């Protein structure tokens, strides 16, 4: 009843419009109609595509998603399993561990650094490029105040920021009246352990393994974000008037005096450290072991010795330090999470598709006779 009233009232209105339109055409015709233009855009008559959720579209979509995800997941999982990884914790918590004495006797004022050695054995040889990481646990590089405590202008080589660091670096901004370069808490907590790797062959001779220290930072970091302050090529002169961060043993222009493009702010270990990690347990790239030509594995199986210059104290906040050796693949390092997640989601989608198909089929056959005739 309401419908009929609505229909008739609509008719009346349009007829009025028609009548007024025709009367104005008949008359002087000077009154402009206020009706919007009769274009497709303004009358909402644009051609449209209507996606409707029918069984014919949704159910195949679920099956397709399941069938795509499960092979991807299997591929990822198999690739991740083929990546070889080896980890050794050298914090020195246990009284039997080699670095226990270094950890216990750590003091900030000691001039002589403590050295400890860890022996380990690789069961399988590592082929192709091997990457050596240092890992830290319980170290919150994602703390808000820590992340803000840096001066990117200073690290980009701005001379005015070099002498006058930003306020964000407090309390690591000045020391003894001189500005700190590089300022801030992130720079101050630079990881300064030195790790050396030796291979012990059957004759018990210790051969050092060459570790490459270039190419560990992001290209954009090394060439765009971090720049040494311009001026003198002698960095000692450029950094005159500044002082080293409080917890460092040597100033920033002595990080790598042997190579000019790895010294100062563009030192790659420093750049890698300044890229703050997202989670409290993280690993950062330390060195790369280049692959050898021919078929010899980069790291043959056997006994190895890791020599550590223990400079970095972590026991005060219950942290842990590790060294990790790992190969990589097209999807990065060893990451079983992604493979398992893909397999799980693919199987759930497939299973859900089957369940929905059963429900739809049962409901359809039950409801066929009661369907409303069109």
């Amino acid at each position: 009843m309401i419908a009929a009233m609505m229909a008739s009232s609509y008719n009346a209105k349009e007829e009025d419009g028609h009548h007024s339109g025709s009367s104005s055409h008949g008359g002087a015709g000077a009154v402009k109609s206020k009706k919007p233009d009769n274009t497709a855009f303004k009358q909402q008559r644009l051609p449209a595509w209507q996606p409707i959720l029918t069984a014919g579209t949704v159910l195949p979509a679920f099956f397709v998603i399941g069938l795509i995800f499960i092979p991807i997941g299997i591929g990822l999982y198999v690739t991740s399993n083929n990546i070889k990884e080896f980890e050794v914790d050298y914090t020195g918590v246990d009284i039997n561990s080699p670095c226990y004495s270094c950890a216990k006797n750590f003091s900030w004022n000691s001039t002589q650094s403590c050295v400890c050695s860890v022996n380990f054995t690789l069961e399988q040889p590592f082929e192709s490029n091997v990457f050596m990481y240092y890992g830290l646990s319980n170290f919150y590089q994602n703390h808000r105040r820590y992340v803000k405590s840096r001066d990117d202008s200073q690290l980009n080589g701005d001379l005015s920021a070099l002498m006058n660091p930003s306020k964000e670096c407090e309390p690591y901004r000045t020391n003894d009246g001189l500005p700190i370069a590089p300022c801030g808490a992130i720079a101050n907590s630079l990881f300064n352990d030195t790790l050396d790797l030796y291979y012990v062959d059957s004759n018990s001779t210790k051969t050092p393994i060459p570790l490459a220290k270039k190419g560990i930072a992001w290209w954009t970091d090394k060439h765009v974000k971090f720049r040494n302050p311009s001026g003198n090529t002698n960095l000692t002169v450029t950094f005159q008037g500044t002082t080293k961060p409080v917890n460092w043993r040597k100033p920033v222009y002595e990080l790598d005096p042997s190579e000019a493009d790895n010294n100062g702010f563009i030192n790659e270990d420093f750049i890698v450290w300044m890229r703050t990690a997202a989670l409290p347990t993280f690993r950062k790239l330390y060195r790369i072991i280049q692959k050898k030509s021919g078929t010899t594995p980069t790291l043959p199986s056997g006994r190895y010795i890791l020599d550590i210059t223990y400079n970095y104290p972590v026991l005060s906040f219950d942290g842990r330090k590790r060294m990790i050796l790992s190969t990589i693949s097209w999807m990065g390092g060893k990451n079983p999470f992604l493979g398992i997640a893909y397999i799980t989601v693919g199987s759930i989608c497939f299973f859900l598709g089957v369940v929905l198909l059963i429900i739809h089929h049962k409901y359809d056959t039950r409801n066929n006779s009661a369907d409303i005739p069109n």
Partner: protein
Amino acid sequence: IDCNSLRYPSLYKPGQQNLLFNKRQFFLCTLQGLGTSFLLFFIPYGAFSVMVKEDGSQFSDQQAFAVTIATSLVIVVSVQIGLDTHYWTAVNHLFIWGSVTVYFAILFAMQSDGIFGIFPSNFQFIGAARNCLSEKSVWLVILLTTVVCMVPGLAVSFLRVDLFPTLTDKQNLRRVRRTSSRRSAYAFSHQQGYGELITSGKNMRMSSVSAAPSAGKSPHSSNWIENMLKRKNEVLISGFGNKSK
């Protein structure tokens, strides 16, 4: 407006009864938002706990994590809006694809070398998007997050349309069996024929409404059209039963 709206006036009932936006719907939307946020953070979190780039350099840093989550968010929201859109006109296409494109444009602009040169301290994310989005594993994470956020919503809405179809859904299902997708005023030929109407003689009786100028010219101004509408509405109202007044 359209012939459709006149033909099925019961479609206006959900609006009048406030069925589509009330406290319960709002609560369900909030719940869906919470669930999506949870998934959007924890799936990349699980993937990033041990992640390195293809060239071995470290990857599980804050800025790459942030870029991954932000990109997943924009893509999930765009896909959700796309699935909820009932009529995909050119304007819809422009705005939905445009949003995603503009997001990537702004992302790369904010993390470019140029703007870092001007304001180093404010645009610290330099290089993050370039390094992050060129990794295959990051795109796999984004794809996984998108699918996991969409699948429950899709399953629920499909079940709702299948098991408890509303009037709109029934009408949409009926329309999908026809080919017309242009919203035009001329849809009259898709009705059942006039044979039954003429032979029953109904149109001869109701001649009290006489304001029609001429029959057959425009669909809205004939008597027997009105009667057809009335009859159709009666069928509809009685057919769907419980909501008739």
